[in-house]
């Protein structure tokens, strides 16, 4: 049964994790995402579904608890905000290296360092280009509404288990703190060990002595074998790139100028499109929903039809590099964004488009 509620993005993530049948959430509070663990503690999902909720002693402990639970074939997740996510990078690299599924939520705030608690999109490089060490990839989903905060928990676990790979939901303080209508999904049961094995393969360590011994590790002492393991990872990443690119095109038919923006900036840009219309400007928007794999092909194709592209993000210019790689010099690509916790208004985006692309 679908239920409609008014919820904060952070609350929607928390409720969605219960309804997804997640086995365990491990977290540590940090603004602007503390509502995730607060909501879970208040809801007591251990009474509703048996889901474990634990406030770990640190972010590092939390990601390693996720690592352990994931190795046992459990649906495990954690969430944090930028400084806390930095602490989790070692664990993410190990989880990726060990090919384990999990969902990690980053409700990004202004940086660098402890920075501010206001919204930012300056963790793009960290999320999409590595963050931790080694040749690995996170599958990255960027919600632009409270509804997507809820929906991407399910999508995230589906992708995580399909590819045995960590998935990051890259949100920010704006989407985390705002309230919108959200349609909640029906409660799913938590999966049993047998169900996990039947659906996703027999790889989890279940502590059952009668079974074949399974070893989950990211350590390999022979470089020849580690190279082969990397080949396998790379082949998997190519599959993800082939199958899982998601994006939304808004007003792109006959647009003269194109904005590329994700998450909260994509919302702001939709208002910019309206403001542009009032001035007689025809502006389109491509909203990447997966940041990795990035919708390069869609942007490359759209570049043929427009006079210029403005990448809009709450950072000093990160995603713009991927837009430039995608466009490959076909048209001018510029960047605009406020940062450090400041949010650009729809009017400011329009002025930037007029100055940097239309007039420039």
């Amino acid at each position, binding site marked *: 049964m679908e239920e409609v509620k*008014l919820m904060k993005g952070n609350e929607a993530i928390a409720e969605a994790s219960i309804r997804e049948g997640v086995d365990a959430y491990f977290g540590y509070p940090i603004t*602007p995402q503390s509502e995730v663990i607060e909501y879970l503690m208040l809801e007591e999902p251990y009474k509703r579904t048996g889901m474990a909720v634990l406030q770990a002693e640190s972010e590092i402990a939390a990601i390693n608890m996720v690592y352990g639970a994931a190795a046992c074939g459990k649906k495990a997740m954690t969430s944090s905000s930028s400084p806390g996510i930095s602490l989790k990078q070692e664990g993410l690299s190990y989880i990726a290296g060990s090919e384990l599924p999990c969902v990690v939520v980053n409700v990004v705030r202004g940086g660098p360092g402890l920075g501010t608690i206001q919204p930012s999109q300056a963790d793009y490089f960290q999320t999409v280009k590595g963050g931790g060490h080694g040749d690995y990839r996170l599958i990255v989903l960027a919600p632009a509404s409270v509804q997507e905060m809820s929906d991407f928990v399910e999508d995230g676990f589906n992708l995580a288990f399909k590819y045995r790979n960590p998935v990051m939901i890259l949100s920010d*303080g704006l989407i985390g703190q705002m*309230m*919108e*209508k959200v349609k909640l999904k029906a409660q799913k049961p938590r999966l049993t060990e047998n169900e996990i094995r039947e659906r996703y393969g027999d790889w989890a360590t279940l502590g059952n002595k009668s079974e074949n011994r399974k070893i989950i590790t990211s350590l390999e002492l022979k470089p020849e074998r580690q190279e082969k393991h990397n080949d396998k990872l790379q082949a998997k990443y190519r599959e993800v790139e082939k199958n899982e690119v998601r994006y939304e095109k808004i007003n792109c038919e006959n647009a003269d100028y194109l904005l590329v923006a994700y998450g*909260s900036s994509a919302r702001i840009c939709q*208002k*910019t499109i309206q403001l542009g219309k009032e001035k007689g400007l025809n502006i389109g928007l491509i909203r990447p929903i997966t940041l990795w794999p990035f919708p390069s092909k869609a942007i490359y194709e759209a570049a043929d039809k427009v006079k210029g592209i403005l990448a809009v993000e709450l950072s000093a210019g990160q995603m713009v590099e991927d837009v430039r790689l995608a466009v490959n010099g076909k048209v001018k690509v510029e960047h605009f964004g406020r940062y450090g916790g400041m949010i650009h208004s*729809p009017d400011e985006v329009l002025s930037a488009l007029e100055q940097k692309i239309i007039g420039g």
Partner: protein
Amino acid sequence: MTEEIIIAGFGGQGVLSMGKILAYSGIMQDKEVSWMPSYGPEMRGGTANVTVILSDERISSPVLKHYDTAIILNQQSMDKFEETVKPGGILLYDPNGILKHPTRKDINIFKIEGAAEASRMSNSKTFNMIILGAYLKIKPVVNMENVLKGLKKSLPDRHHHLIPVNEEAIKVGIEKVQSLQTV
């Protein structure tokens, strides 16, 4: 119909919960809604504001620079938000503690003695509902039936016995709001 509102005042005045009740009322009336607060240290006694959007269409940006209506409840907010009202828009304020009254000539200005009425009701917590009533009198974006439903939805069960006093406060607001300038 799209109504873009900023509600701004001190932390503790009930600015955020007033916005939440308005947003919930919007949902009860099948509208799209968004509620975007200022958050952080200002929630603990400094200035607090929330942007609420009610619309018949999908809502684009939850953060804005210009508003159809500004509801202003302290001087800092007057200084910051008077200029953000769209020409022809609405500024509703409580004169309590306001030293510099609004000066714009191109907007509709209303006042409600919210703090004074709340103390007359001997219940300072009704303040935000008096303001909500005043706003709904000026702009009936949601009907009273749905406001009461929204109120019920946004209050936890243990506070439901307070619904009648809140309803009373909304009525006081409706009754006492005064128009100062019409354009």
